[in-house]
Each structure stands twice: as structure tokens, then as C-alpha cells.
């Protein structure tokens, strides 16, 4: 189990427990976390599960693959810490992960 904390744009925090193997997007959707639209259902084909990974977790979550980087072009206000949460697989090593949800998914 890994605990993941999602911080909304307004500062509201939600912490959920995620099973290793699922994605950070799936953990959000399963727990009805607002702000993760995941329109394409995790196919890396929209950009509506965009999150900012907290600096302390950059290394553990890794960097986006080519297809994810391409899809990030469709997100708004993309930063160096931007990821698509459907592309981050939960592992025990991510216990405590902190991600911020952008003001808007487009």
C-alpha cells in the first residue's frame, strides 16, 4: 500500500491508499478525487489527468516517456514537474507521494 496525497488548487488535501500496480490517476478516480477528469480512461490520449509532482518526489516518479511528453502539449500551464497521472504507476516506494492538481484540466 502507498498513501498518495492530492492537493487541490485551493489547497484542500485528500489522502488515499493505493495498491501497487494501479496508477496515480486510477487511485484518484477510485476515490472520487475532484480535478482528475481522465477523459480517455488512462490511454495517454487526452491530458485531463495532469498533475504537478511535488519536488521531493521527482526522482521516485521518474520522467515522462515520449508519448506522455507529447500528450502534455495538450495540457494547460505545463511545468517541469508536470506529469499525466495515468502514466505514474504506484509502487511501495511511492508511499507518501504528493501531487498537486492544476486549476483546470482541459
Amino acid at each position, binding site marked *: 500500500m502507498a498513501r498518495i496525497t492530492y492537493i487541490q488548487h485551493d489547497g484542500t488535501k485528500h489522502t488515499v491508499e493505493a495498491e501497487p500496480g494501479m496508477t496515480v490517476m486510477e487511485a484518484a478516480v477510485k476515490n472520487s478525487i475532484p480535478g482528475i477528469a481522465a*477523459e*480517455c480512461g488512462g*490511454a495517454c*490520449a*487526452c*491530458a*485531463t489527468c495532469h498533475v504537478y509532482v511535488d519536488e521531493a518526489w521527482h526522482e521516485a516518479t521518474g520522467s515522462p516517456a515520449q508519448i506522455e*511528453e*507529447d500528450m*502534455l*502539449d*495538450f*495540457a*494547460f*500551464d*505545463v511545468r517541469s514537474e508536470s506529469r499525466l497521472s495515468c502514466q505514474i504507476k504506484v509502487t511501495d516506494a511511492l508511499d507518501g507521494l504528493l501531487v498537486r492538481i492544476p*486549476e*483546470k484540466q*482541459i
Partner: protein
Amino acid sequence: MAETVIKTDAVIIGAGPVGLFAVFELGLVDIKAHVVDILDRPGGQCTELYPEKPIYDIPGLTIVMGQELTDKLTDQIKPFGAEFHFNQRVETLERLDGGFRVTTDLGTTIEAKIVVIAAGGGSFTPKRPPLPRIEEYEGKSVFYSVRKMENFRGRDVLIVGGGDSALDWTLNLQPVAKSITLVHRRPDFRAAPASVQKMMTLVDSGDISFKLGQVTELHGEGGQLRSVTVKGADGTIFEQPTEIMMPFFGLTMKLGPVADWGIQLHENLVPVDTEKFETSEKGIFAIGDINTYPGKLKLILSGFHEAALMAQQAHKYVYPDKKLIFQYTTSSSRLQKKLGVR
């Protein structure tokens, strides 16, 4: 606009897997169909969102890719000769005596005895970047598509994005526009390498300008853009003068004009019965992801089932005097003839 009116039995709105299979089920009961889709090819979400992603729950196919399933369905429905109208969206639906008239945004007019809405998550429409007050500029100086190149003649145009749409319009508008500025968040592009190469050449020759960054604000009055604020990749902020902006952030699904056709809706879905998959309006059916009923599952296979049952009722409207005898494709020589296998 006084184009010829197409007269047919059925008009299917949406060429996704369920819309395609509806052609098959309607064809088996001798109902001819025309299919309209906003995209430029069949497949809907299957080809737009996950052409190369596997689908595991199509009965009989252990694994199939979105594109592959679309190709197989397209092949399967060939005997029925449905006509496709791509790149257009059905805007209006009017009731006629004994049928309906639908008109698309390209002016195609189809009169049919029944309408099948197989529009999935809705029609694919360009994403609107959440820039403050962007609505005021849309249609005046912010555009998501080019209907007439002439409207861009002699204008300063800013194009945002790094995919094929952004690059194609950069290249196509360059000879027409007064100036083209391409803004993209990174130096890499998803577009076809040949387009990227052409764009780079134009940048080198000084015919267009390329800026790394993201647009954060719009400036102007009365819907007329004067400039935009761009946040550069290195964090620097600058203002870029322009008359027109074209943002290309991909597509999203919106219910669209279906909401204006006088059909009962529930949370952006179309309620139907589970016997005929008919909407609140007689002769208008809704199948696939766009409909709702108790226990509904948004699965392609559910849509296939819905198409089969819909066709039974559709037959009653198209051939009110004929009795439909249920037959199997395996054993019926009449069905096999229609399929061209006998």
C-alpha cells in the same frame, strides 16, 4: 446552400464502432443508412483516442487494437454500401411527415425515416485553453479551425501548439498571412517530421517566427485581440502582438447540438428503453455510450447488442406493412445474399 437533399431510410450520427455496426444490423433488415461523423475517418474514440491500444473485451477477439477493430467493422459492413459524410456535424434535426430531416454544418441535408444517435461521448470539438475571457475573442480573433483562408489574408496570426494541426496551419497560412508566429512549449514537435522540417526552414529564412513558451493572458478590446502574454520556457514573460490566435490543444468530447433536438436528456445522456433503444421521440434511437438506462454499461459490446434490437423496431417504421421474420446469418440464404457470401 440549396444543395440536393439526400433521401434514405436511416441516418446514423456517429461512425464509432457502434454506429458502424448499426449499419450492419440495419442492413440485414434492408434498411439503407447514411452515416455522419465530425472526424475525418471512421472509428470514433477507437481511432481518435486509442488506435494502438488493446481492447480485451470484444467477444471472440482475445485482443484487438482500436484501429484494427474499426478496420474489421468497416470491412464487415461493406456489403451494405452505407454512405459516409465525414468532417461534419449534424446541427439541426427537424420532424417531417413520416420522418426527419437533418442538416450538417457543411450544409449536407439528409431526409430519413429514422435517426440513430450513436454519438458516443458527444462530438469531438477543439479544446478551449482556460485563458481568462477567451470566450469574448472566439469567432472574432480566436479561431480553432480555418473555414476560409481569405479571412487570414494580410493578418498577424499567432498559432499555439506542436501537433499536426498547429504545423499544418502554420505552413498553409504562411503564404497568406502578413506574419505567422508559432508558440510551442518545447522545442520538440509531435507533428509529421516533414512538416516540422518545412517549418524549421521557414523559421531559418525569417518567413515565420517561432517562440518557445505558453500563452498565459490575452489582451484586446471588444473581442479584437491586440497581443498575448507568453511565459517563455525559461520563465521570462513577454508580450507578443497579434491580431489572431489559433490554439491547438487537441480535441475533447461535447454533447453538442443533440441537446437542441427536443429529446429528453439526463445528465448529458439520452434515456432509452431497453427493448427498442428508442428515445423519448418516436423514430429517434440512441445506442452506445450516449444512451442511458438502468444497468447501462459503457461497453462496445453493449452498443452492438443495442444496435441489433434497435434495428428490429426501425424495420417497423421503415417497412410498416412488412412483417420481419427473425433469421440467422449462419443459415438464412436471404441474409447470406445480402452479405454477398452466397
